[in-house]
């Protein structure tokens, strides 16, 4: 009896496995009828870390939509670990090379670990471009991402508006994180050039973390109550800063500028605890990452800068940066653009 049960269990799991495998292989075959015969199928892969996060789901949404605009013979896939794990991304790259995909867009959990697998793909004739987090030392063809200097400049612009040309600013960032350092410097340089009345009086390390951001802000505001604006250079810290301001009851004196737009930022802005946020555009990044990748995979007669690949914007493509003020939220378009991305699994 028990032997029978075990046999059944075995049989069922085997069936499960193989149906899973064979079903998925034919996942996209339903719309094949419309496929034009002369165009062979092409497959482009997007490699991410933190797979399933809002941000990368928006980038992949852009990637998919751009692929659709080329034609139904273009297939895409999203691979990568759910953790921040560059080694696991390298594993995925290795397999994609073996699978001989037509192009790879990759964002690196750290800038160095993926260098050798990116180079390997390029050497194998597979076009690779970076998006979002760059891997500048690799042979990747280009980067589609965010210009962090203008990101900082945008923040400076808004800070200037908020304080009416005269005020003290504190900036929270993570030393050693190149992107955040760029945002910090962009802010400072812009102020030095254009807004002499806006003065950066503190640059603090909040370790990219809510709790640490709260602690840092607490001690900052206690020692220096004259601060007018706090700019948090990444997406998570704003909640901690807002909490510190709230508990010191200094909401009327201090304006918080956040980065990125997520559910937490949305709530804080609606509550009036965050005055503005600076946003880049993941959908744009995904969309243009695909278009570049497709171009790289289809060289034309005109000589390109990266033979044997097609022409790409080798200087990089940067997405627009915009400042969102609390009053912009009213009509809901911002929320539609940045919250609740389509999900992929």
């Amino acid at each position: 009896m028990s032997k029978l049960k075990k046999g059944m269990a075995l049989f069922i799991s085997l069936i499960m496995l193989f149906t899973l495998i064979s079903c998925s292989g034919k996942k996209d075959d339903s719309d094949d009828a419309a496929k034009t015969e002369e165009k062979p199928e092409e497959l482009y892969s997007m490699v991410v870390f933190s797979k399933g996060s809002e941000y990368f789901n928006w980038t992949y949404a852009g990637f998919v939509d751009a692929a659709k605009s080329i034609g139904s013979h273009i297939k895409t896939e999203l691979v990568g670990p759910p953790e921040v794990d560059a080694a696991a991304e390298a594993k995925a790259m290795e397999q994609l090379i073996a699978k001989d995909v037509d192009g790879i867009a990759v964002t690196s959990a750290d800038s160095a670990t993926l260098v050798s697998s990116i180079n390997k793909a390029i050497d194998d004739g597979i076009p690779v471009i970076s998006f979002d987090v760059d891997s500048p030392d690799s042979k990747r063809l280009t980067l589609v991402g965010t210009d962090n200097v203008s990101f900082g400049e945008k923040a400076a612009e808004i800070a200037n508006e908020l304080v009416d040309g005269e005020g003290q600013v504190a900036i929270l960032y993570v030393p050693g994180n190149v992107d955040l350092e760029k945002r910090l410097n962009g802010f400072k340089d812009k102020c030095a050039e254009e807004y002499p009345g806006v003065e950066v009086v503190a640059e603090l390390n909040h370790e990219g973390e809510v709790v640490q951001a709260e602690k840092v802000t607490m001690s900052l505001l206690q020692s220096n109550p004259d601060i007018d604006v706090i700019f948090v250079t990444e997406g998570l810290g704003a909640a901690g800063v807002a909490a510190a301001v709230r508990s010191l009851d200094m909401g009327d004196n201090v304006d918080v500028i956040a980065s990125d737009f997520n559910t937490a930022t949305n709530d804080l802005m609606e509550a009036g605890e965050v005055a503005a946020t600076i946003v880049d555009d993941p959908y744009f990044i995904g969309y243009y990452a695909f278009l570049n990748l497709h171009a790289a995979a289809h060289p034309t007669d005109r000589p390109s800068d990266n033979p044997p690949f097609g022409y790409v914007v080798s200087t990089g493509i940067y997405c627009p940066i915009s400042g969102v003020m609390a009053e912009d939220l009213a009509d809901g378009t911002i929320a539609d653009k940045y919250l609740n991305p389509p999900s992929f699994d």
Partner: protein
Amino acid sequence: MRSKQENNKKLFLLNKLKSLDVQNYVLIVLMILLIVSISFVNPKFLRLRSFEAMINNYTLEGIMALGMTLVIISGGIDLSIAGIMPFSAIIYAYLIKAEINIYISMLIVLIIALFLGFINNFLRSLLKVHPFVVTLAMQLTLKGLNLVITDSQVITDFPENFTKLSNVKILGLSIPILVLIVLVIFYGVMLSQNRYFRYVYFVGSNPRAAELSGINTRRYFRFIYMQSGLLAGIAGIIACFIFNSAHASYGTGIETRVITIVAAGGASMIRGGIGNIRGTVLGLIFISMVYSSFIMSGISTYYQDVVTGLLLILAVVFSEKFREINIKTNIFKKREEENV
């Protein structure tokens, strides 16, 4: 007398056949099914290239699985490898960046790794707790330490003599693969031929009896955990070879994958004394093939762990069941003899 000898011969042949564990057969069958079904979906799966990718992807796991095989045969477990491996990679990266000779740096890292293995066993025997707890604590401590010393930043820009070495290929094989092959052969030969290595079967199946037979089990367990630490150290250095950089996240989930490989290879978690390198190698190929088949067939890797888990249970249930049946038939035989 004659018939007895013939009988012995038969028994011997039967044993030879049985020596390839049931679980190994199960794995081979599953692998064939996997290969057939995946290559049906994506014919590129059959290229040499994809096999190479499989091995490339599981070099680190493969190296550590060898040490884990011994640990598991001895009836223990070593979770600390997920901490020791990235720790070694980071220390090695710092050493070579400090312009210390790359070979001397290796030696230093390996000594540290051995020492960490020593500490594992020391705490295990001192506190008399299950190695699960001690090695888990070691893993957490080192993972934390890795973040502290690197500030979660990647260490890169290795000196040129190292990057040159990391690009060396012998017979078309990269250094990581060569190291894996050499270690597999070494462990395979030692565990089947070397007397000291083979004691692990005694220690694992009956530590008290092993002690009474003149094996210093205290020293032996020290050896077991130290060699596991050493292999994690080697894997750490190899990680630097593969990535040309070092990062605290390198060990993420690696202990689970290593244990899965060893368990899939037929080493028994339920009682010690069972397992071998051949099984572990099969387990390695199997697990990396499962991973590869996901990307090859384009199924979301979210399902990967689900399927790996199911397959593992399947393989284990199968082999434990068969072992039981084996034992039962032996008893049965005994009863039959009696009745004759």
